[in-house]
């Protein structure tokens, strides 16, 4: 994982690209886009539970990045900054959507079941879907913590920076989130299924 901690902000792997990008280099922006799009998308996806919305958010994020990269001072890594932007765009999006959809039935998590899931036997696909649902069902702060720390593999310090929290808050939230996840998933799977999932990941 190429992410550095805040301490290593000066040696941010994205720094040269960011510098080019700042002078309006379209190609550099595209490289940055390719490098981070998966993670930004995944964050947005878990937050919005919709592929379309995630795509929209990714676009907004990178348009914002292109516009305001000049204001990025390199005090943190580009990645943490990017996720701060992503988070704010996502929040705006969710606020807007909530306003639009107020009174409508709560959107289901069916969006999360994707057609391009890697193939596996029924149980595995089922398990993955359950994990997705569980993550998506977490309360906002816990979900952010889990997505950033666990799915996007950020350190707590980085996640704290993205979320604007202290490290201890990240830790506590993450702890609670894990507990909640375990509770949600435990009722669902036999020990065998979990073992399989673990073996697969191992």
């Amino acid at each position, binding site marked *: *994982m190429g*992410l*550095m*901690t805040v301490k*290593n902000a000066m040696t941010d792997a994205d720094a040269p690209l960011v510098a080019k990008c700042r002078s309006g280099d*379209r190609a550099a*922006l*595209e490289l940055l*886009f*390719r490098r981070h*799009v*998966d993670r930004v*998308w*995944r964050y947005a*996806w878990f937050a919005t539970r919709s*592929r379309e919305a*995630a*795509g929209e958010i*990714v*676009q*907004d994020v*990178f*348009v914002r990045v*292109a*516009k305001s990269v000049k204001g990025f001072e390199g005090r943190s890594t580009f990645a943490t900054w990017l996720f701060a932007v992503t988070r704010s765009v996502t929040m705006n999006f969710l606020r807007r959507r909530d306003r639009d959809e107020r009174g409508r039935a709560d959107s289901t998590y069916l969006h999360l079941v*994707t057609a*391009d*899931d*890697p193939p596996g036997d029924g149980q*595995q696909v089922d*398990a*993955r879907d359950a*994990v*997705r649902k569980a*993550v998506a069902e977490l309360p906002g702060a816990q979900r952010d913590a*889990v997505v950033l720390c*666990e*799915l996007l*593999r950020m*350190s*707590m310090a980085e996640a704290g920076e993205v979320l604007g929290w202290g490290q201890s808050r990240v*830790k506590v939230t*993450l702890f609670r989130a*894990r*507990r909640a*996840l*375990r509770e949600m*998933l435990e009722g669902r799977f036999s020990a065998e299924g*979990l073992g399989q*999932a*673990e073996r*697969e*990941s*191992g």
Partner: protein
Amino acid sequence: MNCEQAKGLIDLRVHESLGESRGESVKDAPELDAHVAACPRCRAEFEELLRVRGQLTTLAGDRPSDAEKNGMWTGVLKAMAMEKTTQSPSGSVLHWWARNRAMVFSLTGVAAVLALAFQIGNLQYGGGGSGGISGAMYSISGGVDSSDQYFGEVQSGVNEESGGELLERRADGPSSVRKNRLSPTGSDFKAVGTAGGEYTGGAAKPTALAPPPMPGVILGESQVHAALNADDANEPLPNGLVVRGTTAFSGMTPGTSPSLAAPNAVTVPPLAAAAREAPPTPLAVSTFRWMAEKAIDEKAEDAGGAERARTFSRAGWERERDANNDVPVANDDNEFFSGGVALNNGPSPRPVPQNLKIIRTGELSLECDLFSTAAERIERIVAEKGGFVANATSSEETGGAIVGTIVVRVPPERFDETFAALKAVGRIESENVKAADVTADYVDTEARIASLQITEQRLRELIANKSFVDKIASLLEVERELNRVRTQIESYQGQLRVMADRVSLATITVTIREPRRIVPSASLSVEVASLDVAAKALGETLASTGGKLLSGKTSKRGDGTLMGNYQIETNVARFGEVAGAIEGLGRVEERQIKDQQFGVAGEPWAEKVKCAIALVLFERSRQLPNASVGVEIDDLDSAMERLTAMLANHDATISSSQTRIAPDGADAADIRLRVPAGRFASMLDALDELGRMTSKATTGETENIVGGAAAVPCDITLSLSEKPREVPSGTMAVEVAAFDAARDALSRQIAERKVQVLASSSSQRGDGTWLGHFRLGVTARDMEAFVSALEKLGRVQDRHITGLGLGDLSRIDPTALGVIELTLAEKASLAPAPDEGSGSIRARIREGLRGFYSSIGLIAYGLAVLLPWLLLATAILGLFAGVRRWARVRNAAGDTRPPE
């Protein structure tokens, strides 16, 4: 390690154990592991973390697809572009300026330098303007901001102060004087090298020298020469060049001013005052030119070739003069100095030999737009100069460029002006002027002739004197010798004549080459509706544009459509027009245009240079039509008559026909028609008029078939059938008094009229009466009589007979069978049926039973509803009774208790 310490590290440790280091690492991992192993709480935490992690890793595959990513990126770009366009216009102008500032500056610089160069060129080439600055190559650096990254490659040798600098200039055109020098060896030039004067021949003298364009400009030698031609010879030249001279007649003495301070000073032979007045002679001009060049060359050699500017000094001139001191000098008699300019060859004037024989030849290679006009111009020029065209050949090279050679003879004294005039005809590729001195040869030959003539004279005298020893033999010998001498004299005289001819008329060989032109070509493939129409239009186009049809081939394809292959030649000027007209013929399927230049239509050569267009016109391939039509007609014969007329109108023929008669006597015909595809649709419409169209099935295209396919015969299968003829038939119901009697009467009728009994059935009804059904086949002819006979059988209850009017059998086959469904019903008796009573008893029993069952059911239902209540009531009563009994027993027991 205690739990408190472990707690903070477990998270990291889990990540590490999953092989996901995050830059931080657990320092005392073994200790932590030991603690986790020992402490059940921490182990639980560790395992839980591991498990959640494990579950979450299953989601690692969740990511957008590549297509989605690309879509998002496009979205980003679009959004950015949208934002850009919504910026204020002034901002975008500024933006453009900021981006292209460097380019604007450099273009301005280039333009300035070009304008300057053009000005100089004009002066230099005598203001003729014909040569312009063609052939010149520039390496230019404009006002380029060196910090700008966009034009880095133009910046070699940038000079940031000057507005632009002409670093180098090479010109292969008229300025390459060195090529045309007079033969620099021998005595030719020395003999005449004293002439100070202009060398541009008849060309207009420049009236002013261009001021130094800018500091630091280095001029080519042509400009030095131009400067030499300036009226004021003392005008300082750019770059410190100084031309010095005097107006005094001083011949070969170069530069009277002894103080040639400037190191790069050019000193040329001053122009004699007399020479200025008199028209310059060609030879003098050539000589001067050679001298100037020679000096320039030497100067350049002295400087090691490092200096671009060819300049020379007084020393060079003096060397030149010393070396040439022994050269004879022209005198008044010299034919080449016909201007009569007396020249003084400095300190040691020498006479120029008489009858100097010089053969002047020039070779000129020109590039002209059009050979023909160039040739005309050359002829005109030569005629003006008193010469003639000795030979002209031309040939066409591949690509249509014409290359030709014109050999021109002119009087030698007009050689230079002719040569100069010829040079103006086109762009000069190379030029070469030679002057070969054949004086020695000429004199030699003359001397030989003279001596041979003396010999001849003596031989003649010998013969005349007859002073021979051995007369006959000697006479023969002498005469043979005389012949030999005579032949030799003639041969020499011939040589002399040739020489004299070549001396008396200079030869200029002009090679004219049309530029290698980019000739457009096109290959078009156009789908047209009809090839004939399109070909006609094409012909009109070619006629109006002066094009030619080189070849044309028409072929017919399988479906009858036509395809034409054409090779068209047109001239370059009308190429676009012709190609456009062709594209207008139909739908362009393929278009390949090569080397089309725009804006050449107005060029004079464009009218004459041919270019080729390969064209394929083809008709759209057709799905030929095919139809099958069914028409109901009144009468076959009249329909056939009308059909025949229609066929004549539509060029159609009947390929087969078959008639048949239907069972009901109606005529029908199956006809196969062959109709040209072009008339197919109208034929179909016409068929509609024959009668009522009952079916119509078409395949393929029917409408708008034109071109070759229109003539292809297509089939229509026509099925004509007369309206079906209905034979009278129907149903009848007759109530008869007695069934048997009626049946007998019917049988008689049947027998009498040969009626077919198709089916019959009779049955006795409940009341003992009979009912009969008969299905009878009756010929149409007998139908009417038979029906009326049936009516007499009894009372007609129902009669429903359809068909053509019963009396009119003209349109139907009288023997056709009609079917009558006849029902004969015996009149029902009024007596009550005996069975009725028994039936009602059974019904009554059934009724009674049903009542019984239903009452049983009701009772059961009532019981079922009441039973729980009864049970409940019983239970309550029992309970009540029990309680009372118990109370009684207790009271009784209380009464028996003894007092305390």
